[in-house]
């Protein structure tokens, strides 16, 4: 075991096996803790069945052609300059930052990490490998606690992520510490690569911070695979802003699990933007584990061609008097398909729960299709839960009205789409990100 973290510089093109796991563990300079987690995850990965369309949460997911047994164990960071150039035009590029990190394929580029000179004492912003070495107590206390390794088929991709780990971000904000500017991570897929991304964000009691991540690819024609796991810990009375944007090239297939634990009186404002990838299977889970916690989750997707966006959202009220509010809105063009499956679960004893979920879809063409499946599972009696799902076409009366003012049909449709997205954009609390996402979507409309 080396004393410092190693950066994985070589691709291990053989698929995951006990031998490649050992090889990767060595190359990554794993601490004992990480080596053990990696081995456990690999074993769980081998035991967990591959999901199929007969499985409840994978009913709509196009898994054909996703051959995990052929996936390289890890792909090194290649074409770093191209990756860096790509990030210059990302949705969140112009944001003033407290820290920045570039992750290419499976590996975090250590030299890319920057930190503002005036970061408060105790704030850690580093690669996962470095954090495991430099801050073992902090790291080991949280890694795998929000998204643990299990044998469940639903966690097959999580286990793969942990077993293949060679990078990612660790952000730690100590007690009662506020960092005003956002931290950002760019996760880039380059030609011939595969992305394995992990984030562990920990806000201690009373801390405040913003984390923005964006998934991008350099090659518009490359159909790579991406697998992400994001663990968010919002400590008691903390305030976390989290933005995750997925703007991969269309052929990419993306799997992700994002989960937050909101502790007592924590406030989490979470926004997800989905624009790219041919298929995105994304779990977004809010676990309100502390009384009085407050989580707002906003989702926005805009897809065309034959893209498929598949969101599985879960609002678990495990503690009393917590509030969760989810709004997902999507626009679908051409033959695009979206799936939104939302579940609000209220545990026994979670009295005073206040939970909302709403999904609205605007369908631009007869060939586009949205499945919208809200669900409630309530085991407490003093709760308020509401859910709604709508799928609408462009309203011909709105079109007529706008055209009657001289606006062409094409421009009128765009204006109606802009109007449809305005509500969700207004919910993004990180102002710079909100403005940039707005501009990016308006540009896409004009493209």
């Amino acid at each position, binding site marked *: 075991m080396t004393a410092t973290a190693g950066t994985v510089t070589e691709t291990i093109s053989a698929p995951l096996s006990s031998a490649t796991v050992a090889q990767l563990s060595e190359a990554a300079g794993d601490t004992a803790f990480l080596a053990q987690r990696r081995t456990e995850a690999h074993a769980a990965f081998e035991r967990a069945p591959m999901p199929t369309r007969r499985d409840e949460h994978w009913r709509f997911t196009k898994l054909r052609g996703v051959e995990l047994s052929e996936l390289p164990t890890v792909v090194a960071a290649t074409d770093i300059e191209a990756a860096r150039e790509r990030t210059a035009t990302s949705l969140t590029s112009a944001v003033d930052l407290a820290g920045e990190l570039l992750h290419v394929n499976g590996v975090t580029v250590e030299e890319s990490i920057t930190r503002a000179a005036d970061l408060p004492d105790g704030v850690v912003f580093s690669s996962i490998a470095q954090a495991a070495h430099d801050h073992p107590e902090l790291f080991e206390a949280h890694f795998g606690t929000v998204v643990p390794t299990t044998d469940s088929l639903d966690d097959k991709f999580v286990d793969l992520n942990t077993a293949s780990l060679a990078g990612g971000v660790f952000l730690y904000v100590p007690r009662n510490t506020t960092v005003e500017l956002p931290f950002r991570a760019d996760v880039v897929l380059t030609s011939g690569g595969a992305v394995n991304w992990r984030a562990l964000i920990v806000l201690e009691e009373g801390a405040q911070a913003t984390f923005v991540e964006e998934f991008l690819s350099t090659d518009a024609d490359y159909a790579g695979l991406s697998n992400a796991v994001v663990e968010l810990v919002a400590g008691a009375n903390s305030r976390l802003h989290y933005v995750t944007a997925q703007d991969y090239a269309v052929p990419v297939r993306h799997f992700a699990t994002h989960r937050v634990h909101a502790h007592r009186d924590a406030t989490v404002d979470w926004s997800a933007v989905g624009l790219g990838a041919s298929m995105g299977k994304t779990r977004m889970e809010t676990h309100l584990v502390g009384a009085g916690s407050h989580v707002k989750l906003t989702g926005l997707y805009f897809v065309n061609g034959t893209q498929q966006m598949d969101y599985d959202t879960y609002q678990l009220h495990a503690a009393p008097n917590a509030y969760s509010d989810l709004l997902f809105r999507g626009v679908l063009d051409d033959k695009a398909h979206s799936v939104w499956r939302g579940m609000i679960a209220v545990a026994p004893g979670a009295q005073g729960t206040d939970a909302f979920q709403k999904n609205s879809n605007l369908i631009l063409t007869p060939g586009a299709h949205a499945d919208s499946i809200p669900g409630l599972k309530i085991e407490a009696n003093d709760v308020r839960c509401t859910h709604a799902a709508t799928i609408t076409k462009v*309203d*011909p*009366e*709105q079109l*007529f*009205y*706008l*055209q*009657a*003012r*001289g*606006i*062409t*049909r094409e*421009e*009128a449709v765009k*204006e*109606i789409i*802009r*109007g*449809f*997205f*305005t*509500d969700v954009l207004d919910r993004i609390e990180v102002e710079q990100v909100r403005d940039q996402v707005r501009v990016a979507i308006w540009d896409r409309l*004009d493209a």
Partner: protein
Amino acid sequence: MADLIIKNLHVSVEGTEILSGIDLTVRKGEIHALMGPNGSGKSTLSYALMGHPSYEITQGSVEFDGQDLLEMSVDERARLGLFLAFQYPQAVPGVSVTNFLRMAINAHRGVRGDGRNDDPDAPKPIKIPEFRKVLEEAMELLKVDRDLIRRYLNDGFSGGEKKRVEILQMALLNPAIAILDETDSGLDIDALRIVAEGVQKLVTERGMGALVITHYQRILNYIEPEFVHILVDGKIVASGGFDLAKRLELEGYAPVLESFGIEAPARVGAGELAGTKA
């Protein structure tokens, strides 16, 4: 001359004929009132002229500014100077009144998209200070509340607010001919006066032609039409000067129609036909 010349216009909705041969010419600077009981086809005429896809023209012609109006798309009609003040303006959530107004003005200028264009001769979008100035003037004229234009277009507006914003759009877009479809309904008496004076001003100062469609006579106390037409069962059955509207007010529809040798339709009660009912 940007005249609107309607000849023998027949219009059907879902296969049922609603208008059965309308002849009407509205010239710039003229005010016409089109009156008639509910169900006579007044709104059908306004929608058909603007080009709503549900209204099928089965016969006749409409010429506007020397061109065949019926061959044009809805937005082309608008850009050529035809304006419809809607009876029931459509809400468009997420689109602010201000942005919408600027977009509509730019569309009338022939600006494409966001106006970013390499061609130096391409139409330019209205500059923000100029837009602000014309908007302020129109808002002042029509006593439109500042908060209203920051809100989403017609979204949650009261009936009166919607109507004012319709006339605000008219003032900013400067049409050659405006059709006001029951603009008076939903307005209280003060709002009605302000809106009517605004319309009158556009006619007097800018030479706009107006076709004022109304069920009641009361708006005509503020806008004095030179020509009054009575529409019954999809046909203009009588035309005259402003005195015709006055007679309708005093006598009601049935006696006036009788004096033209027309029997009032049996399905319409006397109360329905009383011009003064408000």
